[in-house]
C-alpha cells in the first residue's frame, strides 16, 4: 500500500508542476513546443538525460546483469557513455544553432529546408512517426502494468488498481502535464525524475551493504571461484559480435524527435558543454550500482522466478519498505517522463510538419496552431490508451516494434550527419536512405521469430514487476529489451532458462559454404532476433546500408542550390579548429 501512496503523491506533484508551467506559457508554438528556447544549462542537462533514461536503467540493468553478468555494463552503458555525448556534441550543437537561426522546431523542417524538398520530408516524417508510435503505446501499457502490479496485495493476490485504470491514470496525468505545460512542464518534471534516478542506485547499495551478512568481496570471490557462476563476473558467454554491434545502437538517441527537440530548446549553445561532460558520469552513477547489485543478487538470493525483480527482491529482504515505494515512484516517473516527451514530439511533428506545412498555419494562425497541438495531444493519447487496452495481449509485438525502432533511428543517423556536414548531399540520397531503412525494418520484421509472450501475472512472481514489464519500459540508454546473448526464449522466465543453461539454437536463413567455416549471412538466434554475418545485430547492415544509399544517390543526383548550401554551411558545419 505504501508504494501506491508514494506513487499517487508523485502523480499529484506532476499535475501541480504542469499547472505552474501553464501559467508561464504563451500562446505560440515556439513557447509550447520548445519553452521559447529558454532552457538553462543545468535544467538542460537534467532534462536531456531524463528524456533518454527510463526504468530499464534501474530494473532492466540489474535484471540483465543477473542473467548475463557484469558484461551488460560494457555492452549497454559504457557504449552509450561514448556515443551519446559525441552525438550531442557534434550534432546536437549544430541542430541548436540552425533552430535558433532559422526557426526550425523539428528535424523534418530542417531537412525540408536544407534539401529544398517537400514530399520527401513527409516520407521522413512518416517513418519517424511510425517508429515512435509503438514506443508511445508501450509506455502506456508499461505504466498501466506498473500501477496494476504495484497495487497487488501479496496475501490475496488482488490488485487495487486494474490494468485499464492504471493505463487511464498514466494517460490522463501525461495528457494534463503536456497539454497545459508543453515543453516547459515536461522539462520541469524531468528535473525531479533525474534527481530521483541519480540518488536511487547509491542509496540502494548503501542500504543493502549494511544489511548483508558477508562483505561484497566475499560474494564476488565466491562467484568467480565457481565454474558454474564465473560467467557472471566475466563476459565468457557474451558474443563479441553482439558487444561490438551494440555500440551502434546509441546512434539512435540523437535521431529521436524528442531528443532533437530538446537540443532546439536550449537557451545557449554553452548549455551543451556541461551536459556532454556530465552525461557519461550520470550514466555510470545509475548503471554501475544496479549492474553490481544484479550480480550480487544472484550470489545472495540464488535462483529467483523473475530476474528483472532482483533489485526489488534485494530491497524486500535488506531494506525498509519506504525505499521500495520510492523505487516505484522512480519507475512510474520514468515511464511517464518518456511518454510525455514522445507525446509532445508527436504533437510538434504533426503540428509543424503536417498542419502548418500544408497551409494550416496561414489559414488558422499561430494561436490556433497551439490549439491544434493541444487537441492532437488529447486525440493521440486517447488512441494510444484504447490500443493499450485492446491489444494488451499483443504486448510482445509492441516490444519487438520498439526494439526495431532503435535500429531504425540509429540507421537514420547518416541522414542527419549528411545534412549537417556534407554539402554535396541531396534530397534523393535522403529519400534512398529512408526507404532503405523502412524496407530493412519490414524485411527483418518478416524474418523475426515469434514475439514475446504477455507479462507474467503478478501473483506468479510475487513481485511488482514482470520481465515483460521491464521490457516494456526498456527504452532507456538505447537498450533493446532482450539482448540476443541472453539466448532466452521469449515468454519463459529467464532464471529458468539460465538454470537449464540451454545451448543456443540457431536457425540459419542464408549461409555461404558448408561445415564449421560456413559464413552465416543471415540467421535467427534462439530468442528470435535476426543476426547478420556470423552473429552481428541487424543495426550493423542497416547503418552501413543507409550511409551507402545516402552517398551513392547523392553523388548521382543534382545538389541543392548554391544559395541553400551557403545558407547552411556558413553556420553549421564549420569544422573544429
Amino acid at each position, binding site marked *: 500500500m505504501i508504494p501506491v501512496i508514494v506513487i499517487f503523491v508523485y502523480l499529484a506533484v506532476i499535475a501541480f508542476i504542469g499547472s505552474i508551467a*501553464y*501559467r*508561464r*506559457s*504563451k*500562446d505560440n508554438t515556439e*513557447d509550447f513546443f520548445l519553452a*521559447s528556447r*529558454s532552457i538553462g544549462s543545468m535544467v538542460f542537462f537534467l532534462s536531456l538525460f531524463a528524456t533518454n533514461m527510463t526504468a530499464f536503467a534501474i530494473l532492466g540493468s540489474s535484471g540483465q546483469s543477473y542473467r548475463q553478468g*557484469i*558484461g551488460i*555494463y*560494457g555492452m549497454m*552503458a*559504457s*557504449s552509450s*557513455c*561514448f556515443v551519446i*555525448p*559525441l552525438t550531442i*556534441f557534434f550534432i546536437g550543437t*549544430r541542430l*541548436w*544553432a540552425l533552430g*535558433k*537561426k532559422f526557426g526550425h522546431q523539428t528535424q523534418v523542417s530542417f531537412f525540408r529546408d536544407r534539401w529544398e524538398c517537400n514530399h520527401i520530408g513527409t516520407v521522413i516524417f512518416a517513418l519517424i512517426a511510425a517508429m515512435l508510435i509503438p514506443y508511445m503505446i508501450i509506455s502506456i501499457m508499461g505504466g498501466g502494468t506498473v500501477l496494476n502490479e504495484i497495487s497487488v496485495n501479496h496475501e490475496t493476490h488482488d490488485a487495487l488498481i486494474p490494468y485499464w485504470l492504471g493505463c487511464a491514470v498514466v494517460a490522463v496525468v501525461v495528457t494534463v502535464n503536456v497539454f497545459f505545460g508543453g515543453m516547459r512542464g515536461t522539462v520541469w518534471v524531468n528535473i525531479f525524475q533525474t534527481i530521483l534516478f541519480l540518488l536511487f542506485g547509491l542509496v540502494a547499495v548503501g542500504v543493502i551493504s549494511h544489511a548483508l551478512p558477508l*562483505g561484497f*568481496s566475499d560474494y*564476488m*570471490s565466491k562467484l*568467480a571461484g565457481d565454474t558454474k557462476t*564465473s560467467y557472471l563476473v*566475466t*563476459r*565468457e558467454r*557474451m558474443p*563479441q559480435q553482439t*558487444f*561490438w554491434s551494440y*555500440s551502434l545502437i546509441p546512434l539512435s538517441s540523437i535521431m529521436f524527435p524528442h531528443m532533437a527537440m530538446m537540443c532546439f530548446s536550449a537557451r*545557449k*549553445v*554553452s548549455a551543451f*558543454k556541461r551536459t*556532454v*561532460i*556530465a*552525461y*557519461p*558520469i550520470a*550514466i*555510470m552513477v545509475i548503471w*554501475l550500482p544496479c*549492474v*553490481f547489485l544484479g550480480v550480487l543478487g544472484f550470489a545472495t538470493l540464488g535462483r529467483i522466478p523473475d530476474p528483472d525483480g532482483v533489485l526489488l527482491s534485494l530491497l524486500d529482504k535488506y531494506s525498509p519498505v519506504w525505499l521500495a515505494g520510492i523505487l516505484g515512484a522512480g519507475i512510474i516517473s520514468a515511464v511517464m517522463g518518456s511518454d510525455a516527451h514522445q507525446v509532445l514530439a508527436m504533437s510538434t511533428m504533426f503540428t509543424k510538419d503536417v498542419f502548418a506545412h500544408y497551409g494550416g498555419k496561414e489559414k488558422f494562425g499561430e494561436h490556433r496552431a497551439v490549439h491544434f497541438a493541444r487537441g492532437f495531444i488529447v486525440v493521440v493519447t486517447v488512441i494510444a490508451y484504447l490500443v493499450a487496452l485492446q491489444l494488451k495481449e499483443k504486448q510482445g509485438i509492441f516490444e519487438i516494434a520498439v526494439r526495431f525502432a532503435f535500429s531504425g533511428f540509429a540507421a537514420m543517423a547518416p541522414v542527419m550527419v549528411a545534412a549537417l556536414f556534407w554539402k554535396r548531399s541531396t534530397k534523393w540520397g535522403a529519400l534512398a536512405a529512408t526507404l532503405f531503412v523502412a524496407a530493412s525494418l519490414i524485411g527483418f520484421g518478416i524474418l523475426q521469430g515469434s514475439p514475446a509472450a504477455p507479462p507474467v501475472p503478478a501473483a506468479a512472481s510475487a513481485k511488482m514487476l514482470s520481465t515483460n514489464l521491464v521490457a516494456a519500459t526498456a527504452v532507456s540508454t538505447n537498450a533493446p529489451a532482450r539482448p540476443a546473448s541472453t539466448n532466452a526464449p521469449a515468454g519463459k522466465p529467464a532464471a529458468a532458462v539460465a538454470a537449464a543453461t540451454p545451448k543456443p539454437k540457431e536457425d540459419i536463413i542464408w549461409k555461404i559454404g558448408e561445415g564449421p567455416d560456413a559464413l552465416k549471412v543471415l540467421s535467427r538466434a534462439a530468442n528470435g532476433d535476426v543476426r547478420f554475418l556470423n552473429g552481428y545485430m541487424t543495426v550493423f547492415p542497416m547503418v552501413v546500408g543507409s550511409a551507402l544509399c545516402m552517398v551513392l544517390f547523392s553523388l548521382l543526383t543534382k545538389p541543392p542550390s548554391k544559395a541553400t548550401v551557403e545558407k547552411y554551411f556558413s*553556420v553549421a558545419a*564549420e*569544422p*573544429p*579548429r
Partner: protein
Amino acid sequence: MKKFLIFVFIALVYAAHQDFWNWKSSGPLVFGFLPIGLAYHAGFSVLCAIMMAVLVNVAWPKHLEADEAPTTDKDPGAHS
C-alpha cells in the same frame, strides 16, 4: 592536423571500449569487490567524460556562439 589528431583521439578511446583482454577474466577484484571487467568499464565511463572535456576545450564550435541571443526573463504574453 588538429582535426586529424582529434579523430585519432576519439578512435583510440573507442578502441579502448573493446577490451577483449578482459573477456574471460574476473580478477583482480578492484577495491576488493569490483570484477575487473566492470571496474574497467566504469573507468572507461570516466575516460569518456574526460574525452568530452578535452573536446569541449579544444574542439568547441565557437562559431555557433554567435547565434546566442539574449533571452528575456519576463514573459510578456504569459497567462496569469
